[in-house]
């Protein structure tokens, strides 16, 4: 499996459930397209649920960074939910862990949006 993206709306927060592999090629571009579409529609509060992400490479990490920059520059907020150990380790190694607002609980993540 490459990547599966399901989007749901909770109040004014758009939650994207990501499952599978975010790697160079289909996985990274699918995530990029989905997030660009959301930003294009004016959605400013985006929560990426990465709990079912089995693999992410440097391209996938780059997509997370690009998405964060795009959403933030547009006046919005992008937060991460349910990082697997693998994703968390990679974000720590690359010093990106503190850049993102990371949550373990969907309820608290939703509440944290202002």
């Amino acid at each position, binding site marked *: 499996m490459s990547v599966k993206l399901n989007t749901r709306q909770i109040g004014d927060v758009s939650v994207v459930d990501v499952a599978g592999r975010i790697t*160079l*090629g289909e996985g990274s571009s699918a995530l990029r397209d989905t997030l660009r579409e959301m930003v294009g529609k004016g959605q400013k509060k985006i929560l990426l649920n990465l709990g079912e992400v089995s693999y992410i490479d440097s391209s996938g990490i780059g997509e997370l960074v690009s998405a964060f920059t795009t959403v933030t520059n547009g006046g919005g907020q992008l937060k991460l939910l349910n990082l697997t150990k693998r994703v968390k380790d990679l974000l720590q190694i*690359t*010093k990106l862990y503190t850049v993102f607002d990371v949550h373990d609980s969907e309820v608290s993540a939703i509440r944290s949006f202002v």
Partner: protein
Amino acid sequence: MGEESRQTSETVERFLDSTLGSVDSAEELALSVAQRAGFDEGDLMKIGMAVRESMVNAVAHGNRYNANKKVRLSVASDGERFTVRIADEGDGFDFCDLPDPRSQENLMRASGRGIFLVRSFMDEFQIRRLEPGGTEVTLVKYMVSK
């Protein structure tokens, strides 16, 4: 590294097309050899990712997906060292001055983390220019804890 190594010596070599499919194939091949060599899950993750990132560099940045160019992959384990060599036929790149992706000015860049991750995950990393053209990277993971 697991407590016991299951196989003492193995070498495989492949010539792969310059496609993203080859990236998956190379990772699978390296992981199968590493698994037989007895690496644990944590090391397998590191090896797999280092091979993937190096293959992406060879296929995408080295050979630029050119159907006429191949990537040579060799994977060897000898009981002490697990060695992966990946060589492309590209124009090469300036690898002497790779910026640190963790520095403040590079932190939010969308790319430039591949080689950094390879270096982080492997015990040795070497890169050399090939004549008449191409780049070869050598990745080594120690099979005996030092």
